[in-house]
């Protein structure tokens, strides 16, 4: 019997090629999207799951509210890992790490290479993160202070085909290190990615300064909550002496002043998708994208499934006779249901084959747009195939269920008489499905427009500085840091170099925070500090609001001067700030050096737009790591070449590198831009699938109304009137869908926008545009069919019956 089902299924597919093509292509697109989303979600949720005992690994963090300044960061004090390791029997292994923010120049003999990602770790690092060692011993590799562990790739870059083990590498022209281990790149993703690991084992017993990432693994069977309590008690006691020393108040007084300070634990596997704190090691993924893409996949499946249901039931007239005959010769209803489900499942599996091809086709583009590295054939190929088979089966059963039940319910007496074309029951159901389909498409259209409006709002937002034509060059050596201020004129000799400046970091970098005290007040003020030179404001285009800028002529070298940004003034509620004195800690004994606040500058962004501007304090310092050049708009390449030439004369050891400031800052928006592009792509796919369904349905409707159209034409209806008649119904459905889609989209959009610190109000424009777009799509799709029907010869139409 099954063979018979298959036979009929294939023959009916071939006979109804157009419908079959619409069904299969629609399903295939739907399945392809589902698989892409599956690969993406699988990849995003796989972070840090390859480490041994990953379920028991935690990162410590800090949540504090001091003087109204909130802080939530994954950082911890220098001695914490050591304390975890030595004072807690529940801890199996603990380590701490500092992540390098910059490329480092590494040298082996004559080979000089910038290595992008460096970590300073203690010798227990590889006990928590079990990198696979090709050479060396994970337990001892980093015991010596001059030890370094390289990844295989880094070793190859520096040593070529030679064995790097126990070889000497030079670190940043500063010191020589001995390679004590070579590790493989981990098999899975992690929330960090390093090319080399420098030993850093010394412990300083300062608990109030937080400059390390600390990770530890609990022993099996340890209750997290119990441990957390013990840990907090222990660490709060450790911090007490430091609080008293630096803040000159007791811990009790500290908490009595509405301050809070708490160590927190983060499960390792939560970091990639759920952690968006200050000072993350690198930009993490976002669980929202995972949800959004799952949502889109569901919508696309729904749309394609509806196509299938609609076309099958619409064509039911053609199958009705068959149903009648089969019933008369002895088919029971379950047999017919099985037959039709078999057909839809077969179509779904044909679609799956096409879908595999589509995934193969789309994957490179997807990877490029989403900045991912997904592969179809990877470690989870079995899961991927299994998932796709399951989804396909479900798809076939789900989308075949309604047609199966609908068709098998035909009464043989009426269908064999030829009454089936008059059955109206399916029509309103089909209309309902079209409405649902267009609700889904319209939500996506509105969504995509709002996403693009938000992104372009962020792109055009006043960042508070002028990043065009400014290039940033890292000062790699102490020599350059100390002496660069004397070199300005060398560059300014070229008239196309407009300004030269230096700062401890620039927009697009990670800022630093420090404690300050306002004279006459006991309050500790955690402010974000930026060290600059006198030319900074001119070079970068930061505007003065009140007071004055730093001025070499007016300021003594021995005293600090401070400029605050507007947010600092607002947040700290400082009245008449100009002329007041601010103190900064100059040593570990809590001694302060005071200086005048001389000016207020307009807010400017350092971090991306999901972060509000921080309260900042700027001061002049020689302790800076970047130079900036503002150059003329024309002949930029020649100017940069000039700078490079002069630079290399001053600093031959480090090859010259630069980045445009606007591009550097713009990179912070990349994740949102990728997301927007992907959303756009998926929306277009969804619209294509919807249109295909609508096209099929329209052609069916036109076919069904052939006789009516013929009669109307004989009675004098024009082509336009007929087209209007056929199109009107569909437009009505699309408009109804819009009525539903508007409020749903509004709520989703409103919710999504709360993720941004700077957001647009949900505008009306996307809703109007989406309505216009959906109507246009419907009219264009339907009218080609309607035009054909309206132009047909009425004689043929009437003979047809």
């Amino acid at each position, binding site marked *: 019997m099954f063979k018979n089902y298959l*036979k*009929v299924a294939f*023959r009916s597919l071939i006979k109804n090629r157009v419908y079959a093509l619409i069904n299969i292509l629609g399903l295939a697109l739907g399945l392809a999207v589902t698989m892409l989303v599956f690969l993406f979600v699988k990849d995003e949720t796989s972070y840090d799951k390859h480490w041994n005992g990953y379920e028991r690994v935690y990162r410590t963090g800090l949540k504090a509210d001091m003087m109204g300044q909130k802080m939530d960061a994954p950082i911890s004090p220098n001695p914490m890992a050591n304390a975890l390791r030595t004072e807690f029997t529940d801890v199996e292994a603990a380590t701490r790490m500092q992540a390098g923010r910059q490329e480092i120049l590494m040298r082996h003999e004559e080979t000089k290479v910038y290595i992008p990602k460096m970590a300073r770790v203690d010798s227990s690092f590889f006990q928590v993160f079990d990198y696979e060692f090709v050479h060396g011993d994970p337990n001892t590799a980093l015991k010596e202070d001059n030890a370094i562990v390289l990844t295989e790739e880094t070793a190859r870059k520096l040593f070529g085909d030679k064995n790097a083990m126990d070889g000497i590498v030079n670190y940043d022209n500063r010191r020589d290190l001995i390679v004590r281990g070579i590790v493989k790149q981990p098999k899975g993703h992690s929330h960090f990615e390093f090319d080399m690991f420098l030993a850093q084992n010394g412990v300083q017993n300062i608990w109030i300064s937080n400059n390390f990432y600390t990770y530890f693994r609990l022993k099996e069977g340890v209750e997290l909550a119990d441990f957390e309590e013990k840990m907090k008690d222990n660490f709060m006691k450790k911090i007490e002496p430091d609080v008293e020393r630096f803040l000159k108040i007791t811990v009790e007084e500290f908490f009595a002043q509405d301050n809070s300070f708490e160590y927190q634990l983060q499960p390792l596997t939560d970091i990639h998708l759920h952690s968006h704190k200050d000072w993350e090691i690198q930009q993490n993924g976002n669980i929202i994208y995972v949800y959004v893409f799952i949502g889109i996949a569901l919508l696309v499946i729904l749309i394609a499934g509806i196509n299938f249901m609609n076309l099958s039931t619409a064509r039911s007239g053609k199958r009705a006779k*068959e149903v009648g005959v*089969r019933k*008369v010769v*002895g088919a029971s209803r379950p047999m017919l249901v099985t037959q039709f489900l078999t057909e839809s499942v077969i179509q779904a599996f044909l679609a799956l084959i096409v879908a595999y091809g589509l995934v193969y086709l789309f994957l490179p583009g997807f990877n490029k747009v989403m900045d991912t590295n997904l592969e179809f054939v990877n470690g989870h190929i079995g899961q991927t195939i299994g998932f796709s088979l399951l989804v396909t089966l479900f798809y076939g059963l789900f989308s075949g269920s309604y047609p199966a039940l609908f068709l098998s319910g035909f009464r043989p007496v009426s269908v064999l008489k030829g009454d089936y074309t008059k059955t109206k029951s399916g029509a309103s159901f089909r209309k309902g499905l079209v409405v649902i389909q267009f609700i889904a498409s319209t939500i996506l259209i509105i969504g995509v427009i709002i996403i693009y409006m938000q992104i372009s709002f962020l792109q055009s937002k006043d960042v508070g500085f002028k990043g065009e034509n400014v290039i940033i060059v890292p000062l790699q050596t102490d020599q350059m840091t100390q002496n660069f201020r004397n070199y300005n004129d060398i560059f300014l000799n070229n008239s196309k170099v407009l300004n030269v400046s230096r700062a401890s970091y620039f927009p697009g970098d990670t800022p630093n925070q420090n404690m300050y005290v306002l004279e006459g007040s006991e309050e500790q003020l955690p402010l974000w500090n930026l060290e600059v030179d006198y030319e900074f404001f001119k070079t970068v285009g930061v505007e003065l609001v009140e007071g004055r800028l730093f001025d070499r002529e007016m300021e003594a070298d021995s005293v600090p001067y401070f400029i605050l940004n507007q947010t600092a003034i607002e947040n700290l509620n400082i009245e008449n700030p100009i002329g007041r004195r601010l103190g900064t800690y100059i040593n570990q004994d809590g001694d302060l050096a005071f200086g005048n606040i001389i000016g207020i500058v307009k807010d400017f962004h350092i971090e991306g737009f999901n972060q509000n501007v921080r309260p900042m304090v700027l001061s002049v310092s020689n302790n800076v790591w970047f130079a900036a050049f503002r150059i003329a708009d024309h002949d930029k390449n020649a100017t940069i070449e000039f700078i490079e030439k002069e630079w290399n004369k001053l600093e031959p050891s480090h090859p010259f590198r630069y980045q445009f400031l606007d591009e550097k800052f713009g990179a912070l928006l990349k994740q949102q831009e990728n997301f927007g592009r992907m959303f756009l792509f998926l929306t277009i796919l969804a619209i294509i699938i919807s249109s295909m369904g609508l096209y099929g349905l329209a052609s069916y409707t036109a076919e069904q109304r052939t006789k009516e159209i013929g009669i109307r034409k004989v009675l004098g209806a024009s082509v336009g009137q007929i087209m209007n008649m056929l199109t009107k119904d569909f437009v009505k459905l699309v408009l109804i869908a819009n009525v539903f889609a508007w409020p749903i989209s509004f709520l989703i959009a409103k919710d999504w926008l709360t993720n941004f610190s700077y957001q647009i109000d949900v505008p009306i424009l996307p809703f109007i545009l989406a309505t216009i777009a959906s109507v246009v799509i419907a009219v264009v799709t339907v009218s080609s069919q309607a035009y054909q029907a309206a132009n047909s010869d009425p004689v043929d139409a009437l003979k047809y019956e």
Partner: protein
Amino acid sequence: MIKLEKLTKVYRTDEIESTALNQVSFEIREGEFVSVMGPSGCGKSTLLNVLGLLDRPESGSYLFQGVEVAKFNEKERASLRKQNIGFVFQNFNLIDELTVFENIELPLIYNKIAPGERKKRVSELIEKIGITSRASHYPQQLSGGQQQRVAVARALITRPPLILADEPTGNLDSKNGNEVMELLVELNKDGTTIVMVTHSAHDASYSSRTINLMDGHIVSGKRNEKPELQV
């Protein structure tokens, strides 16, 4: 074989109620060839549908081989139907996606006959009705007469004791029509009971008895002369 007693069938639409069969009683013995005649709308097709268990009567009794089937549910009716009744329709009702062979085979599949046995029975029957060369053709590739012979063969394949034919020659020219009628007569000779609805007195003359139906009532029933065979 069939005994109807005061059988009534009413059709209801939203507003109108029409009585298609009104207290009809008659009996058909095994081996009979009965024609049902009457003007359009007299209830001929309804009668055939009720006899074929495609439709349920409102009231009255329907004994099929001595079993009361009027109150059978869908499943019981389907089961009785596929084992005991073959149908032949005016418009053939062959499945376009299946070949001649497969169309005839279909009832055997639903009766769960083994493939080997199916093949044997279908081949024999195809030979008998003289369309062996067309076995792998699709219905659209056959003439009307050939299609109807295939339809008759499909009705016969399960060897049902009863064949119900609804104007089997209605869509055929007289030559093809006669061929189909002769096929039915031959079947009848072999012992199959046949009930045939027809408009044509010529066709009715092939049968052994004619029931005349008017507005849901039987108005007369007469035994026919031995049919004259015309070629």
